[in-house]
């Protein structure tokens, strides 16, 4: 069975060019970049090249980039660093819709004496900027705010938010894991102090991430060990991951136009058709500025996991914000923060595309999904009641 992969916000396939470039570093060029010999040293050069490739994509200098193991490590590093360098400040400002890498860490921090302010969003997932402004206090050590939401694709006005923090001398971190490679980012002259990204969301392998730390920003390492990354992150470098991430960033810079033209057109086609065929469906965050690849559609009166598993029978991969999918009992905290009604929240499906999706695949999904919705609704106790009313 053919796989139609529309779950690229979960993870992406490694680009063939990336795979090709990193293969030698598994078997022939396996040296340790820290070694004194040429065999290891030549790998070190490739790591520095990757650092430049990341810098080019982000508009940053290579020395502002440290490599980590994943987006979560980058997020943890940024926030924990700020709490250790901003002595005496015990407040963190964040949003209600963050990824668990930030949300769960903040939850943990409240248990050990820190206070966390979560900025709400409106029905479309847009940030309440007035509340944000009011939340910035002299006690605030850091603001941590995602650039684009992983579930809905809704984009926050990060530069504006960072500027407001800067005016108050507050450190600003953004989790840009979903944004990097999908929308243009330029950190040159930006007010952003720290930015997290993850390799496997942009066609690099899993197990590698990076943290941008603006030059001059006070920093305290999270993973303490060897002198790697100029003493900013201990641990032997994930050489293949890092070299792959460098290449992936180079490709992303080239493909960002495709993301915003071809990918966006396919996403729009999928959305438009599904919504026109399936009654009682809506796009979550549809009115807000969004990533070009993400579509979060709610199908009223049915449950998301059931939809996903029916799609799975056709090889269609997506994800859901329903409670049952995750094993928690509450639907997605993002949709709840947006005030999406329960009738809609449990039946939400996230489709997230990549440059590797084709129009045939989208047509296939448009053909297969509506009958699934109809079938599940045919025995939903709420659907009938609604129809009679």
């Amino acid at each position, binding site marked *: 069975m053919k796989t139609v992969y529309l779950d690229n916000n979960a993870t992406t396939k490694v680009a063939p060019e990336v795979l090709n470039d990193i293969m030698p570093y598994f078997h022939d060029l396996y040296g340790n970049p820290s070694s004194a010999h040429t065999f290891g040293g030549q790998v070190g050069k490739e790591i520095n090249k990757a650092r430049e490739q990341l810098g080019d994509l982000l508009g940053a200098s290579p020395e502002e980039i440290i490599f980590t193991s994943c987006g979560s490590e980058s997020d943890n590093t940024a926030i924990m660093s700020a709490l250790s360098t901003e002595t005496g400040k015990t407040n963190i400002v964040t949003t209600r819709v963050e990824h668990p890498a930030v949300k769960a860490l903040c939850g943990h921090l409240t248990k050990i004496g820190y206070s966390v302010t979560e900025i709400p969003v409106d029905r479309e997932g847009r940030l309440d900027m007035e509340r944000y402004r009011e939340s910035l206090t002299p006690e605030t050590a850091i603001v941590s705010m995602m650039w684009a939401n992983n579930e809905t694709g809704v984009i926050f006005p990060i530069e504006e938010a960072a500027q407001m923090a800067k005016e108050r001398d507050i450190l600003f971190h953004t989790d840009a894991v979903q944004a990097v490679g999908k929308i243009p980012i330029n950190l040159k002259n930006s007010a952003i102090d720290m930015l997290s990204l993850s390799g496997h969301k942009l066609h690099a392998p899993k197990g590698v991430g990076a943290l941008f730390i603006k030059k001059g920003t006070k920093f305290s390492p999270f993973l303490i060990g060897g002198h790697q990354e100029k003493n900013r992150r201990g641990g032997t470098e994930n050489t293949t991951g890092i070299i792959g991430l460098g290449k992936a960033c180079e490709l992303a810079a080239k493909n960002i136009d495709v993301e915003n033209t071809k990918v966006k057109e396919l996403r729009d086609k999928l959305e438009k058709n599904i919504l026109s065929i399936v009654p009682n469906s809506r796009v979550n965050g549809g009115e807000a500025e969004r990533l070009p690849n993400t579509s979060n559609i709610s199908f009223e009166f049915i449950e998301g996991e059931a939809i996903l598993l029916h799609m799975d029978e056709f090889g269609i991969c997506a994800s859901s914000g329903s409670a049952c999918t995750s094993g928690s009992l509450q639907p997605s905290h993002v949709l709840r923060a947006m005030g999406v009604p329960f009738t809609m929240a449990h039946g939400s499906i996230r489709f997230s595309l990549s440059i590797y999706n084709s129009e045939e695949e989208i047509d296939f999904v448009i053909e297969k999904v509506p009958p699934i919705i109809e079938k599940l609704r045919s*025995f*939903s*106790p*709420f659907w009938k009641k609604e129809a009679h009313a």
Partner: protein
Amino acid sequence: MWEYSDKLIQHFLNPKNAGEIDDANAVGEVGSMACGDALKLMMKVDENGIIQEAKFQTFGCASAIASASALTEMLKGKTIEEAEKITNQDIANFLGGLPKEKMHCSVLGQQVLEQAISRYRGEALKKQEGEIVCECFGVTDIEIEKAIKENNLTTVEEVTNFTKAGGGCENCHDNIREIIDRVRAEEKPNIKPKLSNIQKIRMIEETIEREVRPLLQHDGGDIELMDVIGNRVIVATRGSCAGCQASHQTLRFFVELKLQELVSPDIVVEEMTE
């Protein structure tokens, strides 16, 4: 991804008995949209009390749909009395097991069945008894106690898996823990197997020989077991105990307590009257 059995997947993809029965005479409806799953059960019971037809409507995940399909399959052809005996574990077993986080789907099946049977019999529906413990999912202490007793649950996580209680804001976790402790404490006496009369008499004899007589003999007294009638233990006092003013105190606060502790809490000790 959940590890579902093949049988569960089959019942999910091609559910049996999905739909409505217009002239159903036993109908139950549980759950709500907010909870994330809801189930309506419709049955047609004939004049002999046999379930001729059973159908369901459900809003829920794959295991909820499969559990409803399984329940209706199990019900067809059964008498109401037989149907009444179906437990949530039976539903899970029918499907080749459920992931532990999904056990509440089978509990929903059992609840809807109970409700449909009560309605069929014309019993006034039990008003919601007990107090709400979990505000998020509206679960009462009585429901939690029932799940703990029937499924032998010991942790908050297990209670959440079976009843959903505690799966939201988690504010009620301490209360759930208290209920678990209370139920476990209440159940302790039942852990002792029921004694046959012969076993009981033997244990009483042993206890008196081992725990009671040596101490009384130490003070120059003694005791003899004369008879056991139900939980009444008839003894005669000997030696310095006989005629001792305090002997009834000894019997009550020493012999009786010892026997209650080591044999059965219902034992009463009486002194033989001439």
